[in-house]
Every structure is written in C-alpha cells, then in structure tokens.
C-alpha cells in the first residue's frame, strides 16, 4: 500500500516551472532517493509535500488522505517529518528544547511524555553532549544533525531528508548511513535528497531523477545510473 501518492504536482515561481506534473507513489516502509542537478526542484518538491509551498495544481495523498490543502502543521501531525537543506534551528532554545518543541507539538503529546524520547534521539544522533547548549551556538554539521534529530522527534511515518550528508568526512557519512538505516528498519518510510551517491544507494531501493522540475526517471539505482539521459544530464554536470 502506498503511503504517499503524488499526482501531477505543478508549481511555478513566475515564469520558472520548478515542478512540472510530477507523479509517483511511495510504498509504506520504502526508502526512495532523489537526485538531480542544483536547481532541479528537489527542495521545492519537499516543500510541496510538507505544505510549506502551495501547489499550483495536482494532488497529494498521504496515508490514505488527501492533504493537498492542509497547512504544514497538520501534515506534520499526520506523520510527515522533514529536514531543511539550510538548517532552521530555534537559535535561542537549547538543542534539547528544539527537540521538545518538535516532539510535543509534532506528535501532540505533553512535554512530560516526550522528554525521554527526545533524550534518546539526542543520543542516537550524537547530539547528547550538546543537549543544553543554545542551538544558535552549533556549527553547520551539528545543525544538520539537529535537523535530523528534530524531524525524528515528531515521530514521523514518512521522513524527508534534504542533503544532510554534504560536507561530512567518510567516517561521519558512514555513521549517518547507519543511523538512517536504523530508522528505516523501524518501519519509517524515507525520501532522501542527496548528492553523495554511494551513501544514498546504500540505503534506498529506488531512485527518482529530477531535471528542471520534471521527473525524468524512476527505478532501481543500477538501471537509473545506466540510463543515457541520466548520465548526460546528471553525471555530466556533477562529475
């Protein structure tokens, strides 16, 4: 059964089409990778799924319900968790408090009920030593970890990850992959936008390729990477 169904999603900024009739479905428990050159519309696609941007046309179905017209907080409560490509921490709250916000509001529970879970997530994502520091004092890599931790705290059914591996060392990247695998094993569906291909393909079962807002390929990673169109557009620019 699909957890997410995108039906002919379109979005323009002025004359610029950033999403052009995008349709695909994600099965419950599936992990899907999204690739495409910078400016292809990957982050925009996430913003449409989460409701931060409104679609111009098309429909979004999540967990059996049409969420196209719902605001972001309702979609979060329904089970869509996301990270921002450019981290958006609550700078004057501590790292732990950032998670408390996400956990208590994002899963509609009391602060008391979610304290333990937040602490466990901090340990899992390696942020525990920073728990009581202001989020504004974190460096970029830790801010990215905080994005992941905060999204997890909302207890999502679907997790959208936007370029969280960029800038990591080989070892850190391996750690991150392990963390994401563990999340996936718990039954969380994942869509992951990433340029670090070997990290991506070690987690996801299918890849989607975006180019100028259009979906130009979807399928298992080997086939996708072998296709001529993808090699020309994507690898030609990236490598």
């Amino acid at each position: 059964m699909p957890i997410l169904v995108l039906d002919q999603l379109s979005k323009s900024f002025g004359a610029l089409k950033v999403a052009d009739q995008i349709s695909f479905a994600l099965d419950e428990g599936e992990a899907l990778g999204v690739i495409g050159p910078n400016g292809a519309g990957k982050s925009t696609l996430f913003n449409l799924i989460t409701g931060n941007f409104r679609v111009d046309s098309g429909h979004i179905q999540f967990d059996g319900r049409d969420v196209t017209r719902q605001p972001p907080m309702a979609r979060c409560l329904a089970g869509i968790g996301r990270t921002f490509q450019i981290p958006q921490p609550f700078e004057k709250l501590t790292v732990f408090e950032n998670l408390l916000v996400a956990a208590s509001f994002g899963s509609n529970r009391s602060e008391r009920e979610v304290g333990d879970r937040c602490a466990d997530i901090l340990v899992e994502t390696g942020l525990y030593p920073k728990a009581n520091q202001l989020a504004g004092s974190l460096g970029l890599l830790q801010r990215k970890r905080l994005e992941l931790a905060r999204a997890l705290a909302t207890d999502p059914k679907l997790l959208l990850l936007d370029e969280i591996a960029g800038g990591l060392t080989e070892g850190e990247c391996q750690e991150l992959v392990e963390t994401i695998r563990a999340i996936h094993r718990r039954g969380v569906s994942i869509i992951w936008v990433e340029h670090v291909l070997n990290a991506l393909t070690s987690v996801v079962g299918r890849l989607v390729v975006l180019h100028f807002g259009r979906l130009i390929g979807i399928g298992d990673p080997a086939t996708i990477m072998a296709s001529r169109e993808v090699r020309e557009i994507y690898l030609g620019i990236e490598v």
Partner: protein
Amino acid sequence: MTDHVSSAWTVTTRTRGTSVAIALIAVVIVAGFATPFFAPRAVIQDLFFILTMLVLAQCWNLLAGYAGLVSVGQQAFVGFGAYAMFAAVSLLGMDPLLAIVIGGLAALVLSVPTAFFVFRLQGAYFAIGTWVIAEVVRLSLAQWKALGGGTGTSLPSGATRDMPGVRLVADLLHVRGPQATDIVCYWLALVLAIVTIGLIYRLLRSKQGLGLAAVRDNREAARSLGVDPLWTKSFVYLVAALVTGLTGALIYVQKARISPDAAFSVPDWTAYVIFIVVIGGIGTIEGPIVGVIVFYILQNLLADYGSLYLLFLGLLGILIMLFAPRGLWGVFASRSGIQLFPIRRMLAARTDTKND
C-alpha cells in the same frame, strides 16, 4: 545492566539560585502586603503607579518579547477597560470592584475583532494597525455624551468609598476614606501584578511557551514541526488585552476621573511601557521589573524638566537598544548567571539509576 529503568533522564528548570530566588520573591510579596500598615499615603500612591505600570509592561513584553507582536496600540485596551468600568459604575450603578472585571472583559471582547484586523498585517504594518485601532476607539468614546464626551467625567462621589473593604481598612488602619480607597487599590494592584507574573511564568514553562519561543525564533520551521503560529499569537494577544483592560480599569478606579485623551494616552500607556521593557530587558520576566524601578527613579529625578525629560528617556532607550539590546537585566543575568524566573529545560542523565 539487567533492569530496564523506567526513565534514565531528568528534566529540570531549577538553577543553583532557585531556592534563594523563591525566598526573595516571598519576602518581597509579604513586604508588599504589609507596606500600608506603616507607609504614608504618598508612598502607597507611588507604589500603585509602579505596580500598574509593571503589569502593563509585563503584558507588552509578553506580546513583543515572546510573541514578536510589536504593538503601539495597547492604550486601546487601557482606555476601553477604563471606560467600560466607568460606564458600569456611573450608568449602571455597579460596584467598582465588579466593574474592574467588566473592564477586563470588555477589553477582551474588543481584542477579538481587532485581532482579525491586525493579524493580517506584518511587522511595521502590524504596529501601525494597532495604533489606528486605538485612535478609532478613542474618537468613538469621545462621542459618548453620557460619559462626558471629549472632556471626560468623574466617578459619582462616594462610589469608591462604598467599595467592599474600604470601610474595614479605614477602621482597621485608622485612616480616612480616600486614603483607605488608595490602600485597597494598591492591594488590588499588588494581587494583579503577582497573578500576572505568576501566569506569564506558568505560560512560559508550559508547552505553549515553548511553542511561542519556536515561532519567534523561526516561524517556518515551527510550522513544519506542528506548531500553529496563528493560534499561539492569538492566545497571547487576547490574554494581554484582558490583563491590560483590567489594569486600565483599576488605574481609573483610583484616579476617579477620566477623559479620552488621558485614558488613550500614547506616552503614558505605550511609550513609557516600551521604555520600561527595553531598558529592563525584553523577553525576560525580570526585565520589566528592573525597568519599572529605573523608570520611576528617572521620573522623580527629572520630572521638572518637562519635554527635555521625554527627550532624555527616548535617547536613553535608543542607547540601550544599540549597546545593550538585552537591557539592564540581560547584562546582569549574562554576567552573573542569576535568574529569578528560570525557564530553560535542562536535560541530565539520572544519577541514581540502578544498574546491577
């Protein structure tokens, strides 16, 4: 580690100085209630002024410092609450104490339609919108002939003397009627200040307080994590209107005379209030407390200089904003680490975990 412990973590907002802070606050409260037993009338009047300004400042701080709603129109609720109280007493013959509650509720009712209007506006437009509303309310009430129109009116003579408790205070403390009225008003102001600060502190320590901070820091992220910015902001706006209206009504019970220009005064109910919050430290409960004391001292030192005094307040406010944006309390708190009203949730691993 064989046993699974139910919780390995503790979350606390207590800091090292918390016990001292609680004791200090208790002493201030007790001293506050006892003051009328030994202080002269002038001191009681000054303390009444300080306490009511403190409540207004706490409300404005809640709006601007926690919810990011920079209003320059809170005088709408001071004046509307005061006029509603006057109407209830003068026209309906209601007891002034009950009429204060009516004043608060009237301000709350007024805040619902104004919220619909101003929440469509962002930033500077929001501020201008709140001011426009205050002007509209002032001009409308200036048309109310039964309450003296543009020149205003006084409470019926004897209305405040017959308030519950006034006679008792007069007999108990051996003071005359008007002074007893001042004392009752002072105690009400003290209760209002304590309850207001207590409620704000509770709000900030609650889940809604976290939500407010999140929206203030990053609205878009907060929305994506399940926080409803409009709901949190509306809630704060309505609460601030209610308390501001109660305060306005109480102030005018004590003054016993009202006019549209005084009750909707921008300097008295907004400019001074903003000064108090800015100089004390925006976004903290302690800030307005420090600010109101500084403001009172400055006012007494410089009252003879007329408009120069206003100029000086403005300059000082700007200097603080530029060089110490977190105000006097902010500077003190970051140097000393002291907090009277801690709200940080600190996470710690439980040390008494049993692992066999």
